[in-house]
């Protein structure tokens, strides 16, 4: 199911221009939305989920027109949403909370709803603690309940906003694998500022900054733009100078290895400078650098 967004703008009270003429075409499968904090990702997610109205622009989710009340209600029926700040009633048990959400999602038949709740508790490995109150759950467990509630109505569109924020590495990997399994026959929109989450799960992505989409395409396309701009620079200790961003530093004992993204001149103290294949993180850094300098559009 494809999502098309045309000239979307969102201006909050106080004049904050959160989305600036956003045009996006999101195909089926896993789709990443990357950008720094304040880029407009959450605003875009909330508009897609029907929580916010855009100031102007339009969107189409499959056959549904997201600009009408009817269209928005129809989208909500096929939507699963995991918000950035996931809220729950602390005094309900996990089972009760999921049942409650199932009712709000229109799963009227009690037996079907209960079956679905049990299935999803199993998927997120929380069956054993299903009768415990949510206030006793850890952050990772709450996130898993969050994804379970998003999947209750077997949604065709799944929107997950910063799903791995605050999770430990093991939980993060578990979550990523879970999301990847879900991308088969639905559209999963994964919004995050953690590049690795996108790198491990998405082929297609968009990058946002300051309310604008500054890139949309595949990870391969993005990497190809960055080829020749990523270097492994080894020095005798001094930090190399030049028009680049240091992405990582590795102390090798007598030398120091820097991974840099940018233009290399001929800095002093450099023992070697070897070009290397860019990762998604390198490509992201390169793109952000380009956007901060006079515009060199990639889109």
């Amino acid at each position, binding site marked *: 199911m494809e999502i098309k967004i045309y000239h979307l703008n969102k201006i909050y009270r106080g004049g904050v221009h959160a989305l600036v003429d956003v045009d996006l075409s999101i195909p089926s499968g896993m789709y990443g939305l990357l950008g720094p904090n304040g880029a407009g990702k959450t605003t875009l997610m909330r508009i897609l989920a029907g929580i916010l109205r855009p100031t102007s622009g339009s969107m189409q989710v499959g056959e549904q027109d997201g600009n009408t009340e009817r269209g928005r209600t129809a989208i909500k029926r096929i939507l699963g949403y995991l918000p950035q*700040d996931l809220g729950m009633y602390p005094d309900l048990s996990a089972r009760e909370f999921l049942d409650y959400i199932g009712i709000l999602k229109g799963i009227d038949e009690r037996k079907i709803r209960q079956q679905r709740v049990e299935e999803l508790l199993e998927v997120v490995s929380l069956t054993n603690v299903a009768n415990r109150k949510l206030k006793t759950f850890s952050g990772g467990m709450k996130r898993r309940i969050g994804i379970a509630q998003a999947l209750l109505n077997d949604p065709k569109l799944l929107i997950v906003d910063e799903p791995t924020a605050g999770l430990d590495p093991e939980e993060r990997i578990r979550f990523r694998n879970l999301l990847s399994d879900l991308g088969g026959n639905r559209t999963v929109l994964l919004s995050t500022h953690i590049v690795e989450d996108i790198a491990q799960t998405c082929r297609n992505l968009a990058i946002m900054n300051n309310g604008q989409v500054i890139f949309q395409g595949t990870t391969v396309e993005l990497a190809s733009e960055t080829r020749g701009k990523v270097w492994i620079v080894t020095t005798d200790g001094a930090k190399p100078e030049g028009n680049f961003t240091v992405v990582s530093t590795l102390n090798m004992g007598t030398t120091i290895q820097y991974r840099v993204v940018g233009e290399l001149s001929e800095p002093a103290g450099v023992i070697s400078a070897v070009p290397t294949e860019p990762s998604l993180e390198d490509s992201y850094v390169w793109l952000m650098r380009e956007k901060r300098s006079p515009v060199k559009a990639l889109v």
Partner: protein
Amino acid sequence: MNQLPVFFGVLKYEFRMQIRRPALWITMVLLAVLITGAGGAFRELLTYQISSISLVEMVVRWTVRMNFIFPVGVGVLLADRLPRDRRTRVEELFWSMPGALSARMMGKFFGSMLAALIPLLVFYVIGTGCILYHTQDLMTLPLALAAFAVIVLPGMLFISAFSIACPAILWVPLYQFLFTGYWFWGNMLGPRVGIPTLSETILTPAGGYMAAGFFGVPAFQIFDFRVTALQGMESLSLLLGITGLVMVVLWCFLKWQQARQ
């Protein structure tokens, strides 16, 4: 999408969450103790003389006691139900779902209110049981049911609507404070003490007009025996009408608030 299951589902879970609150039971038990101790309610019931007053008057007097101070507890306990959704951050999740705001709101209203009435009902049933024990008259039961339905329930619906709605714009503790003040000013104090109040009007949720109009038993500031059943009906209808109006206004306000975000 059929919204009735949403309404009943929300009602069920709001009821559960409210009934499980220790604050509900502590508050209501304390209020029950206050009524029992201060007004001598149980002493009156336990020493009931069958010849002294009629069954109707006894039942209605007992029913009217429910509206002395229990409504304060109900109003205070319901005041945090709507802001709680924002505090626990479930509000955003609910807005992304197809369950209609109207169904959610009414489910919250009825579920929270019914749960808050349970301790009161228990207390009421105990008192009614005492009357039945003394009179051995089974008419006590339908009389008690009718009296509760027309004297207590309309007022409870009225104050519950305001307690759900007003905290949408007022800070909860401020509302609770103002509501408590309103209850005594608007129901207990009469113009006889030199303060203009709503106490003798058909707008009072304490149920005085219903007690006097339907059962001929004066209550609160309604001491006039010429109060008719029609006036009782007017008071009841006004309370129910305002309840509906408040909920509609709340719905409109929440929709407007959401749209302008």
